[in-house]
């Protein structure tokens, strides 16, 4: 009698979600208070700005005031939009290339032998290391930034795809071969679908890397762009704007990852069931 409700309670999804939300909000409140306390104790806004100052900067950079539009002539949302657009284009190119390369690597033995060390080599490099090269090759406008993001996003997708394609379960491959599937049909109906969960993990990694590379890419001629905004702010010691830029990148990153996770659940309902 008394045991039943206590066992039933954690199983209730509504209350569990409610508790998770409360926990997160609580954690954010605690962090804010700690931030406020540290700022008050330090008394040095150039070192640690007050939360309130960052909030004011948010309003300021999001509006036109005294004839000045946002920050460096662009609203915060425009800076963010330009950066997101670069991330999107870079990720799409990198993911597409990584998929293609990964499938070929996973299926053709000698290509894997040749390309695997190259991909691992590029993967080990910090994106900034080859950024200078791209600037020499492609100038300082959009091209080198998009190249940087694409090249940074490609290896994780290629590696994940190659390993997933190689790891196709023999049981299912045999099952469709027993029904008369040829080489291409086996690839289309078993190898690629079973690889999707792992590929998706690779894509999430790739978008994450593109995200962390964009600020670096925008340190050169990066306005408009969040990276450019942060760099300018750093030059003028506007620590509150720097922090605001970090928040803009971090929070939009969270949102994008949540979006990808939702897409994953929709596209791969069998994840963990195969």
């Amino acid at each position, binding site marked *: 009698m008394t045991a039943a409700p206590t066992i039933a309670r954690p199983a209730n999804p509504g209350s569990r979600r409610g508790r998770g939300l409360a926990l997160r909000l609580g954690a954010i409140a605690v962090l804010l208070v700690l931030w406020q306390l540290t700022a008050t104790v330090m008394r040095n806004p150039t070192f640690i700005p007050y939360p309130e100052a960052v909030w004011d900067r948010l309003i300021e950079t999001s509006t036109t005031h005294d004839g000045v539009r946002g920050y460096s002539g662009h609203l915060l949302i425009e800076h963010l939009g330009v950066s997101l657009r670069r991330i999107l284009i870079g990720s799409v190119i990198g993911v597409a290339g990584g998929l293609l390369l990964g499938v070929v690597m996973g299926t053709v033995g000698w290509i894997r032998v040749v390309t695997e060390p190259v991909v691992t080599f590029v993967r080990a490099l910090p994106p900034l290391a080859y950024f200078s090269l791209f600037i020499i090759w492609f100038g300082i406008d959009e091209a080198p930034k998009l190249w940087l993001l694409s090249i940074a996003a490609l290896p994780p997708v290629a590696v994940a795809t190659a390993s997933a394609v190689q790891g196709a379960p023999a*049981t299912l491959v*045999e099952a*469709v*071969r*027993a029904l*008369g599937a040829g080489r291409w049909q086996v690839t289309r*109906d078993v190898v690629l679908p079973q690889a999707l969960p792992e590929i998706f993990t690779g894509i999430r990694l790739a978008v994450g890397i593109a995200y962390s590379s964009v600020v670096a890419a925008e340190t050169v001629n990066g306005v408009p762009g969040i990276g450019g905004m942060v760099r300018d702010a750093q030059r003028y010691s506007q620590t509150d704007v720097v922090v605001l830029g970090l928040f803009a990148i971090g929070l939009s990153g969270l949102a994008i990852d949540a979006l990808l996770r939702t897409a994953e659940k929709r596209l791969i309902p*069998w994840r963990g*069931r195969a």
Partner: protein
Amino acid sequence: MSSSPELAVSTAGAATPAVRVREVTHVYGNGSAAVTAVGPIDLTVPAGSVLVLVGASGCGKSTLLRLVAGFERPSTGTVRVAGEPPRPGHSAGLVFQQPRLLPWRSVGGNVALALRYAGVPQQERARRVPELLTRVGLRDVARRRVWEISGGQQQRVALARALAVEHPLLLLDEPFAALDALTRERLQEDFRRVTAETGRTCVFVTHSVDEAVFLGSRVVVLTSRPGRVALDLDIDLPRTGVEPDELRGLPEYAALRATIGHAVRSAAV
């Protein structure tokens, strides 16, 4: 010990046998890890017969079936299906011991895929999928997800999928093992009737002596690993025109059950 060669000749005539297994052994692994799973074994399955393989767990029944399907190459000896080396997907229809359904396709989608490989046009596929599912006793599951149906239902979907393509030879690895008694009986009766009517050649693996006597036109009992022929027995029961209950009540039926049951027990040691 082995069946009289005259009988094989009398049923098959001069025609090529559906399956011919000659001096086959199969060894998994190599060196000190080598395991001889099958053989040496000789088997000839004339066209139109239903051969049931019985034997203890691990005696090599699945391996033998995989050899005939072309998924394994024999370590020694030869396997021929209709006179040719077997090719997966071309020589025979196959029901694996596990359902092996594709989780990214719906239940109906799994069956439709087999029809698609067979070149059946889309519209006809939509019509035949429910038909095939009904044949194995499944209704209203076509749109379900594979993991939303029970293990026995999954096995029946695998059966429906294998039935989609009408190869003259059908290989079945314990297809009814995961079913409840009622469904199993229904499918056994259906299977017995259809094989008698169509004359399709089948090799059927089972653990159940009763199932062997009920379904087979011939029963082969295998020894424990490596699997060899311990008993090869023709089942002289009427194939048509007799009710299942009536059949099970025949004294010959009980006698065959006893003989095969005894052979299984002594082969297992």
